[in-house]
């Protein structure tokens, strides 16, 4: 069942100040989509990390470049696309920040947090024009139990899964 999504699209100047602008949009979109406060915070953090990657690593903090954002609210999920004008990165080369040899490294946790907080994370390269990441968070139907629910809810979950 796929219906036309509600769409919010914005292009922001590649400036770290705009990370908070993007977060504010994400907060509103997540609220409109009906996410819980905790899920909304996870979406906001995932977008924050994606914006940092786009501005800092992708666009090399050049204000002349821009970051394109698109939010699509479907019945069952929110999809967020973040596109920069950089050369991209190889997702396979992103190290596990939780492994013993990386645990005390200063950087390298951004992608890990995005993957932790979202249900799907995809990277697409557009040679010569930039890199686009897609973040997907599924919307839990109101009657479906969530983590940390009551025993009764867990029973219901178990019996239907």
């Amino acid at each position, binding site marked *: 069942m796929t219906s036309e999504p509600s769409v919010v699209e914005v292009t922001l100047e590649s400036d*770290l100040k705009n*990370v908070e602008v993007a977060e504010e949009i994400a907060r509103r979109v997540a609220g409109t989509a009906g996410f819980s406060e905790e899920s909304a*915070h996870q979406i906001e*953090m995932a977008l*924050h*990390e994606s914006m*940092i990657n786009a501005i*800092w690593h992708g666009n090399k903090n050049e204000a002349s470049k821009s970051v394109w954002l698109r939010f699509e609210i479907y019945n069952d999920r929110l999809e967020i696309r973040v596109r920069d004008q950089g050369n991209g990165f190889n997702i396979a080369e992103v190290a596990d*920040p*939780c492994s013993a040899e990386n*645990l*005390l*490294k*200063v*950087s*390298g*946790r*951004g992608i*890990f*947090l995005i993957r*932790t907080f979202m249900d799907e994370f995809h990277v697409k390269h557009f040679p010569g024009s930039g890199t686009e990441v897609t973040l997907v968070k599924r919307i839990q139907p109101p009657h479906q139990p969530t983590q940390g629910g009551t025993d009764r809810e867990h029973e219901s979950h178990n019996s239907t899964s």
Partner: protein
Amino acid sequence: MSMKATIRQVDSVIVVDISGRITLGEGCAQLRELVRDQLAKGNKRVLINLADVSYIDSSGIGELVSAYTAVSNQGGQLKLLKLTKKVHDLLQITKLYTVFDIHDDEAKGTASFEKS
């Protein structure tokens, strides 16, 4: 909301009360400078109070790790005080919860330096 930090001394321990956001840019730079200053003054017992931190990102976590390593490398100790649920969860997810010595009570936190 940007990051604010105030410093006070409790016995031999430097308590740093941080509020706001510890994120890439100003917040991280401020924390780095602050820890560097304390080490330059010979203060190697640092307790960072995160009770009023509303937001911390991957760079902020990295900055805490960097501060921890810098103080440890000089023979000192850096500990954390009063994590909010969000910061607590982030340290759990990133497996750093076991790296840092974390306290909920300031008196016990400052006293823990004396024992070590």
